[in-house]
């Protein structure tokens, strides 16, 4: 695949469809040239091309109505994610978690419940936490979006909060960790020296199936320089 694939190009679209729905190799998960579907998609993401809705709707073609009406939102938008402006093709009904994970390759934001009930998808919009699974991407065009990938320094050093979570053995399985860390970042921005009780409140919208809550609170307190 060339690096300037634009999915608005009907040619590219049909190539993708062939890969997704086609017979033979695509069905087995291997595209032509033996590229796996996952690698193919990641390759496109890495190439920085505008990413289309095509593959997201794979298998659901008949279920989705396109209702183009004058004055409604355009699909091609710019998002400010982790300090970089990225062009992306977003359906009106697409959630931010979907865009981040499946269009922009930012899979650090997890999808647990997809129903605002777990916190795995917690991201920051202008330093305020929200559930990316329950936020329409089009409603955050004007926000600075921060995901777990945006925390580490340019030289690869972990953010002090990430380091504190490691030092205190915060995570158990780790699935909820990105969300817990994003809630901690927001807390420490608004209240750099929180009490343990304040930390508890701040992380109360993040479920941990492993029950590592106390370890997480230890991590928050360490990050706040209080451990």
């Amino acid at each position, binding site marked *: 695949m060339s690096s300037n694939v634009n999915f608005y190009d009907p040619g590219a679209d049909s190539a993708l469809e062939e890969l997704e729905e086609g017979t033979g190799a695509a069905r087995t998960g291997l595209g032509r040239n033996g590229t796996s579907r996952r690698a193919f998609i990641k390759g496109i993401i890495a190439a920085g091309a505008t990413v289309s809705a095509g593959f997201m*709707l794979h298998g659901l073609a008949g279920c989705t109505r396109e209702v183009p009406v004058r004055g409604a*939102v355009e699909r091609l938008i710019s998002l400010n994610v982790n300090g970089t402006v990225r062009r992306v093709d977003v359906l009106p009904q697409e959630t931010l978690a979907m865009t981040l994970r499946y269009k922009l390759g930012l899979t650090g934001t997890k999808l647990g419940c997809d129903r605002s009930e777990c916190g795995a998808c917690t991201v920051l919009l202008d330093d305020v936490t929200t559930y990316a699974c329950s936020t329409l991407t089009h409603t955050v065009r004007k926000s600075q979006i921060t995901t777990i990938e945006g925390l580490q320094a340019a030289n690869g050093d972990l953010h002090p909060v990430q380091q504190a979570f490691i030092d205190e053995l915060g995570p158990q399985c780790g699935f909820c960790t990105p969300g817990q860390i994003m809630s901690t970042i927001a807390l420490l921005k608004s209240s750099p020296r929180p009490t343990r009780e304040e930390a508890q409140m701040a992380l109360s919208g993040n479920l941990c199936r492993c029950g590592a809550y106390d370890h997480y609170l230890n991590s928050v307190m360490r990050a706040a320089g209080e451990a």
Partner: protein
Amino acid sequence: MAKDMMSGFALYQPTDLKNALSLITKFGSDGWILAGGYDSLDWFKDRIKRPKAVIDLSGITGLRDVRETNNGIEIGALTTLTEIHQNSLIKQKFNLLSEAAGKVASPQIRNYGTIGGNVCQDTRCWYYRYGLDCYRAGGNTCYADTPQGLNREHCLFNADRCVAVSPSDTAPALIALEAEMIVVNQTGEQAIAAEDFFIGPGIDIERMTVLKPGDVLTTIRIPNTWAGAQFYFEKVADRNTWDFALVNIASAMKIKDNVIIEIRMACGGVECVPKRLTVVENVVRGNPRDEETAQLAANSASRGATPLNQNHFKIPLMENLVKRAIREA
């Protein structure tokens, strides 16, 4: 995952109320108003509601603030629950509302969920939410009010075919504070007492509020009547985060020389609308604030309750909350 994929719609993001109203009017029952989306998106993901057009109000800045007026405060409907919880003016005058807003859902939901959305949200009856064709969904049966129905969370009072309850934590506070809801449509503006804003199944079984397609709640006005009164808010839920109130209580009292001069109280989770407890108010008004009055209030609170199979526990729960509201405010 297919169930999590929303049906397509056109999304509109008007930046002023005039445009929003014309879109909302144009699409009528095919349109859907979106504020924070924390109730709406669940409906869309489950594909139970499939609007053709979604009108996002979050870009209308004039609807998102708290202002002091000559005789009270005005809260824009798009103000977030976190903003209401933290707002110093609200805390100083009407801390009851601040507390109630702080008890909703979870921090992330409060950060983007709005007060307008919180009072307009639909009921949580799971049969209905699951997409069954019950009375509320236009059918002719109720799945909760049956011998096998799971109705632990359902109502105690004034059921009329539907036994669902009002889910909002802020609604009882707004009723206790005598708030007014400003509803606007293309023909004009109307101020509706919070108490009349919520409607039961006897009036319309498919709606929770007076709002009809084309109507927008723009503002909530709270008069100074109860500013600085003695407030009590408590919510009892299975978990402190996420879970809806089994029962919640909001009360405002004016006490002089230990006598209750004036009182207003409302209770959520026991009726399809937030229940104004006028009986309690009448029983305690003019009495000293003491254990005996609190007990009298509690006894009168649940008068007329008709519990379902699994929600008898709500009667003592409600009584105890009323007692505490009198005793501990």
